C-alpha cells in the first residue's frame, strides 16, 4: 500500500510537471506578443521593445524555461537575511522552501499573491457546487430508479436533459434575475464581506454550476441503480424480507458509488479551473476567470500559476478517487491477483 502510494505520488509530480511544461511550450508557440499586450495596442514599437526586455521576453525559450523552473521552488534565505528584491514574489511553503511563480506581466504583482486571493474563493465555490450537484443528482437519480418508468422518472430524466442542453449563461442569468433582482433574496454578485455573506453569495453560482452537473449525476445514478436493482443479490436481499426502500438505498446505491466518485473526481478539476462563465456572471473572482484573462492577455506567469493549481487539483482528485475505489468496493481490489 505504501509502495503504491509512493508510486502514485511520483506519477502525480510527473503529471504536474508535464502539464506545466506543455503549457509553457504551447503558450510560447502562440503567434502573439506578451509585451504588446502589456504595452497596449497603440504603444510605439520602441516602448514595446523596452518592455519586452524588461520582462525578459527577449530571451530564448530555453532560458525562460530554465529561469521558470529554477526559481519555482528554492531554499529560502536565512531568516536574518533581508528579504531583498530576489524574493519579492515568493511564498513560503514547507519550512525553508520558497515557491516563486514570478510576477504577473499585466498586474505586476507576485503570482502567488494573486493565487492566494483567489484560491479560497475558487475552492469554496467548487465545494458548494459539487455538493449541490451531488445532492440534487443523487436524490433525483435514486428517486427515478426506484420509480422506474413512472411520471417521476420521466420528470427527473427530462429535467436532466434540460439541464444538459441549457448553456450556463442562460441558467446563471435566469437565477440571477429571479432570485437576486426580482425577489431580492440573494446578493446579485460578489463574494460577500462576512462569513454569512460568503454563504449567501455562493448559493446562486453554486446552483448555476450544480444544476448542469446534477443532470449528469441523475442519469448515472439512475442507470447504475436500475442495473443493480435487477442483479441477483438484490432479489436475494428482498427475499430475506428487507423493505424495498432499504434495499434500494443500502445495496443498490452502494454499488453506484464508484461511478459517482469517478464523475466527482473529474468534476473537481473542471470546477477549480473551468467555472469561467459562472465566475463572470456572478463576479466571483476565481481561478477560472483568472486563467482566461491570463490567456487573452498572454500573461504567462499567471497562466502558469493557474495551470499549476488546476493540475494539482486534478492529480489529487484522481489519486483520491483511485484509493476510494478500494475502500468503497473491496471486490475491485480483490480481483487483481
Amino acid at each position: 500500500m505504501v509502495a503504491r502510494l509512493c508510486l502514485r505520488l511520483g506519477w502525480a509530480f510527473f503529471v504536474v510537471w508535464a502539464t506545466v511544461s506543455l503549457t509553457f511550450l504551447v503558450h510560447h508557440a502562440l503567434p502573439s506578443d506578451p509585451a504588446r499586450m502589456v504595452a497596449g495596442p497603440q504603444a510605439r514599437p520602441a516602448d514595446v521593445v523596452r518592455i519586452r526586455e524588461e520582462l525578459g521576453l527577449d530571451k530564448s525559450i530555453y532560458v525562460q524555461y530554465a529561469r521558470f523552473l529554477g526559481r519555482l521552488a528554492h531554499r529560502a534565505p536565512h531568516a536574518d537575511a533581508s528579504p531583498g528584491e530576489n524574493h519579492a514574489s515568493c511564498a513560503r511553503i514547507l519550512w525553508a522552501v520558497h515557491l516563486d511563480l514570478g510576477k504577473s506581466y499585466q498586474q505586476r504583482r507576485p503570482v502567488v499573491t494573486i493565487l492566494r486571493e483567489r484560491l479560497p474563493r475558487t475552492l469554496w465555490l467548487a465545494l458548494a457546487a459539487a455538493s449541490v450537484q451531488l445532492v440534487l443528482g443523487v436524490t433525483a437519480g435514486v428517486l427515478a430508479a426506484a420509480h422506474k418508468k413512472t411520471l417521476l422518472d420521466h420528470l427527473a430524466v427530462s429535467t436532466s436533459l434540460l439541464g444538459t442542453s441549457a448553456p450556463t449563461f442562460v441558467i446563471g442569468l435566469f437565477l440571477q434575475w429571479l432570485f437576486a433582482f426580482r425577489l431580492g433574496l440573494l446578493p446579485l454578485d460578489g463574494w460577500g464581506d462576512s462569513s454569512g455573506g460568503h454563504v449567501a453569495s455562493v448559493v446562486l453560482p453554486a446552483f448555476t454550476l450544480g444544476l448542469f452537473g446534477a443532470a449528469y449525476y441523475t442519469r448515472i445514478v439512475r442507470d447504475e441503480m436500475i442495473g443493480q436493482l435487477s442483479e441477483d443479490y438484490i432479489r436475494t436481499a428482498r427475499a430475506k424480507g428487507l423493505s424495498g426502500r432499504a434495499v434500494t438505498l443500502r445495496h443498490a446505491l452502494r454499488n453506484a458509488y464508484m461511478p459517482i466518485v469517478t464523475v466527482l473526481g473529474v468534476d473537481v478539476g473542471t470546477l477549480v479551473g473551468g467555472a469561467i462563465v459562472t465566475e463572470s456572471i456572478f463576479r466571483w473572482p476565481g481561478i477560472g476567470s483568472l486563467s482566461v484573462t491570463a490567456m487573452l492577455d498572454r500573461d504567462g506567469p499567471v497562466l502558469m500559476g493557474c495551470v499549476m493549481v488546476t493540475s494539482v487539483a486534478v492529480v489529487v482528485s484522481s489519486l483520491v478517487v483511485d484509493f476510494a475505489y478500494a475502500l468503497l468496493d473491496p471486490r475491485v481490489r480483490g480481483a487483481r491477483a
Partner: protein
Amino acid sequence: MRSIREKTSREKTTRCAVRLGRQVHLVLLGFNAGCSPELPTPLPSGHSEAALPRRGGALTLASFGDMRTLDPANVADGIAPQVLQAMFAGLVDYDTQGQIQPELAKRYSVSSDGTHYRFVLREGVRFHDGEELTADDVKRSVERALHPTSPNPSSASYASIKGYAAFIARKAEHLDGVSVEGRYVVTFDVDRPDSSFLPLLAMQPLRPVCKSAGTRYADTWHPCGAGPFKLLPGGWDHGRQIKLVRHPGYFRPGLPYLDSFTYLFNVNTTSQRFKFATGEQDVLRDFLAPELLKFQADPRWRPYGEYEIEKQVAGLAMNTELAPFDNVEIRRAVATALDRDQLQQVRASNLRPAYLPVPPGVEGYDASLKGQHFDLNEALDHMKRAGYPFDPATRTGGWPHIIPYLTYTQGLDEYLVQIVMQQLARIGIRLEVRIVNYPTFLALRGRRKQTVAGPGFWQQDYPEPGSFLEPLFHSKSINDEESNNASFYANSRVDELIDRARHELNPERRKKTYGEAQEIICDEAPWAFTHYYRFFVQWQPYVRDYRPHPTWTLDAARVWLDHAAGPLATRALFSGDALAKLLGTRIRGRATW
C-alpha cells in the same frame, strides 16, 4: 403519387409551422413580459435644478473591465485613466471644454521659438501624505516615469524632450530637458517646436507623485499624488473594486464634494443594469445595446443621459503592399462602396458614421473637409478603372479572388464585417473572414506582408489630429513587426504635411495642414473609414452636475449627490439579501448606505 404526397405533406408542414409559429410567438410574448422588466424608474433628486452643490456621499461606478495597474508611469488599460485622474493632478490639464488650463502650475509661458516651457507652481499644494509639492517633485516624477527601468508604455511619445535619447539609453543619469529653477519653478526644453508637447504634458504619465515613489519605478509603491481623492491602504481590492476618499488637503478649496467614490470592476452588463436600477450603482456606461436604445427613447431618462465625445475612429484597413489593395482604384472603390448609415445599424446607439480619420471630438477636427463618401455607382466606376469591372445585373466580373479578412473575436467588428461583406459583394469584392483572438490579431496585423485586410481602429493618445495621423499613416510608423501603420501606407507628401503640422504652433495653420493631409489620405484610402464609436452615459437624477469629461470621461471632483428623502427609502423596495440578513449579517455595499 409520390409528388402528391409530397405536396400534401408540405402543405401540412407549412400549416403546422404557421400554427407553431403563432404559438411560439405567444410563448415569446409571455416570456418577454415576464423577463423583460421595463426600464427602472429614475430615483429622484432631493433639490431643484438651481440648488447649490452639497458635500458628502459616496458615488459608485462600474465597468465590465478590470484595472490592472494604478501608477501614472504605467497607464496600461482603459479604466486606470479615470481613477488616476481623481488621484493625480498635473502641471496642466484639459478642462471640461477640452482646453488646456494650468492646474498645479499657477501659470506657464512658452518661448517665442516654441522650445522652452516655463511653469510656475502653485504654492502650498499638498500631496496625499501631507508633504508640499515642489519643483523637485515635478522633475523627479518625470524622470521616474521616463527612466528605462519603468514599464511606461508611452515613453516614446515624450522623445521630443531634450536629452531623452541619452536618458532612455542610460547614458545620462538625469533628463537634461527638465530643470528646476527654485522651489516653485520648473522648465522643459524640447528639441524642436512641437505642438503635441503641451497636450502630452496634460496627459497622465508625467504627473507628480509623492516622495514615497522615489526616483525609480517600483511595483510595490502605494499610489499617492496631489489629486482630489486619495487611496487608503487596502482601498484597492484587486479584481473587485477600488474605493477612493476625499483628499482633505486638495488645493482647490471646497472640492471635491464627494466623501468617496467607488469603482467596481468585472461587473457584467446585465448585473450593472440591475445595480443601476436599485441605485447600487449610480452611473451606467456599459449597456446592453438594445437596452440603450430604450433608455434613449424614454422621456423619464432623457435629461440624465449624454453622449461622450468621439475619441476613436474605426475603419477597414487595407494593406497597400498586397494585392488587390496595392491598386489605389480598388481601395477607392471599397471606400465609396461602404454604406456607413447601414453599418451604423449594427449598433445604432453607439456608432456614428465616419468619413474622416480624425473623430469629431478631437480638437482640430475639420468638418469642412470633403472626406470619403458612399456612392455605389462611383464605386463601380473605380472598379472599372482598376481593371476589374463588375456587372451588378449578372453578378459577373470584379476582383477574381476571395480576399481574406482578418478580425478578432469578442469585438464589434465580428458583426460589422458581416455587413461589410454584403456591401462589398455589390461591387464584386468578396471577403472571407478569418477570426482569431485579439492578441493573435494584434501580432498578425502589425506584421509586414501578412494581412491583406482587417479592421483598423485608433483612439486618441492626446487630443490632436497628429495623434491619429502620425501613427496610422506616416511612413515612419511602418515596421516589419508591431507596425502601427497597419496598412503600410507611405506617401511622402502626407509625411511632410504631418511633420510640418506637428511643428507648427499656429493653431489655424496647423489645422489647415492636417486637413490637407487628411484629404490625401481619404482619397488614396489606405482605410475606408466606417465609424466613430461613442459612449453614452446615463446617471440617476440624484447624481448632480455629472458631465462626461471630454478627455477623462469622469470628472469626480465636481460631481455631487442629492438623494431624495434618504437613499434608504428607495432601496427598501429592494430589501435584498434576505438570506444574509437571516444569517445576521449584511452584505458588502449595503452596509455603506
